[in-house]
């Protein structure tokens, strides 16, 4: 165990609140346990670009978090290393759900957990976070907000509500069929489309919007800040989600320590600590629901029902139509924005 003492490792997690939880519940205890100098850096969608831009044998970080979009980008650019699962403990307790949608990409990295869309509704609005339909409520007109940049998540909301296909599969259709989802979004009236978490917080503080879509990476922070005035939950219809896998970056100079860290990610104590401090779901199924999330799904069935994965296959389909859909989204923003 002491062989790694003093060695350093740089791990990327999502930045902001997520990074803070990750540091407190994972990185610091790990360092304490092994005497290492693991550090965490915040990242967003520029991570693969950063790796790609850097020299192949000197990546900016050793381990990176990756959702399905990042994974497909990273695999296409060949910046990840395969993971030898035999060297990593803890897989036995991981929900098979994670591998089920993974395909060949399962050879890369370990699943730590996943994120999803949450709903925020101010208590004064009388709408509640129990159903995505709340966005289309009369009382919500001009009081809603969604993400202007990652528009594919916005499309997931009407897709969940739509019965035409299971889960969010409508999103992966041809543009002509996705049009139906845009039509639903077009009916909304946005207070403002937000472009980052800070702006979303600001919009809520200013009471510019009362109903919002929020990523689970931030939802825990929002609960702390807005818990008294707002209801923050995953609506009953379920939600769209991504999974957080941790990948070894090609060229890393600390492969063994990386493996050790990956194992640590799958330990029960690690995951429980993280769960108690976040609104992400985790890959182990043997965790206790935290106080702030009483209906945390622990069974395979509940997981599959709650979290509709924006899968790698889904990205293949969606990516082909991206530009057309992106242009179409701008129309939606133009029609639904009050500004």
């Amino acid at each position, binding site marked *: 165990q002491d062989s790694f003492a003093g060695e350093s490792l740089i791990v990327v997690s999502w930045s902001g609140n997520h*990074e803070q939880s990750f540091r407190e519940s994972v990185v610091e205890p790990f360092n304490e346990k092994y005497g290492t100098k693991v550090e965490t850096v915040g990242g967003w969608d520029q991570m693969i670009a950063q790796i790609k831009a850097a020299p192949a044998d000197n990546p900016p970080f050793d381990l990176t978090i990756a959702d399905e979009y990042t994974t497909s980008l990273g695999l296409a650019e060949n910046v990840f290393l395969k993971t030898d699962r035999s060297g990593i403990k803890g897989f036995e307790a991981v929900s098979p759900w994670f591998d089920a949608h993974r395909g060949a990409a399962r050879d890369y990295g370990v699943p730590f957990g996943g994120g999803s869309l949450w709903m925020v509704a101010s208590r004064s609005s009388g709408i509640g976070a129990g159903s995505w339909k709340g966005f289309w409520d009369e009382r919500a007109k001009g009081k809603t907000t969604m993400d202007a940049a990652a528009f594919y998540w916005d499309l997931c909301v009407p897709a969940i509500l739509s019965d035409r296909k299971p889960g969010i599969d409508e999103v992966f259709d041809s543009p002509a069929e996705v049009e139906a989802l845009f039509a639903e979004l077009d009916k909304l009236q946005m207070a403002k489309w937000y472009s980052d978490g800070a702006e979303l917080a600001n919009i809520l503080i200013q009471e510019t919007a009362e109903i919002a879509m929020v990523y689970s*990476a931030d939802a825990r922070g929002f609960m702390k800040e807005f818990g008294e005035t707002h209801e923050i939950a995953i609506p009953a219809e379920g939600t769209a989600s991504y999974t957080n896998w941790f990948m070894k970056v090609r060229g890393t100079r600390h492969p063994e320590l990386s493996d050790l860290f990956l194992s640590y990610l799958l330990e029960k104590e690690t995951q429980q600590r993280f769960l108690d401090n976040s609104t992400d779901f985790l890959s182990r199924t043997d965790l206790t629901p935290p106080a702030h999330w009483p209906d945390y799904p622990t069974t395979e069935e509940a997981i599959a029902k709650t979290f509709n994965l924006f899968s790698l296959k889904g990205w293949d389909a969606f990516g082909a139509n991206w530009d057309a859909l992106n242009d179409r989204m701008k129309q939606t923003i133009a029609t639904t924005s009050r500004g």
Partner: protein
Amino acid sequence: MRRSGDITARLLWAAGLLVLGVVSVYVALPVAIAFVMSFSGGQILRFPIQSWSLRWYADFFGSPQYVDALVNTLVIALGATVLSVAAGTASAWAISRRKNLATGALTLLHMLPLFVPGVVLGLGIAITFGNVRLFGMDLYGTRFIVMLAHSLWGMPLVMMLMETTFRSLDRQVLEASRDLGAGPFTTFREIVLPEVRTAILSSALFSFVVSVNEFYMALFLTTRDTQTLPVLMWLSLRSAGSPRLAVAAVVLMTIVLVSLVLLASGLRRKERVRG
């Protein structure tokens, strides 16, 4: 200064002062707000402030990540400033000595980097220099490459300011120095440098400020070890605005401001000596 009977003049003057006042408030307001907000006790930046506290300052200086980033920011900014001032001053001197020639084109060339967006420069430099090794060291991820990148913006600013300054120097004073036996280098050190000290310091300040606040280039060129404060700020902005951001902003501004004040008072003292 009495101007009785001259109503138009007084009205114009009053209108001008009004504009001056409004613009002054306009200019100072966001900066003042950031300052005030840094003392907020809440979890998220919000107005009006519900509680006052220094907790975010404690948080900022207690976080090795932020403190390291602050150190990186300062080291990089200092390096970029030295590079910018050295290169910019030298070429400004050369260009200002020439009467006509292609100096116009040269000046334009020096200015071009200012007009390339930071994202483009940052990614471009990372791709171009990712694999370059200098003296057996990887260039990528070092503070040095960020200094180089930042001096692309600092150097033109220094050049612009120094060129006008050099052109306004009294040519006869320089000739007098040559005449008394000083070579070109000695003349520059003994006569020119002391004369243009103010301009050099202010151009240094400009390039320092540019580097301290830049984050796109730094984002693509740094690793964890060299990450700068604005990069951290930008990344956490994407999640939620905690007062820690305001603290970081205030810390940066304070550093810049303190150097400015030191500079100004140093100059004033010097001027007093000269009468």
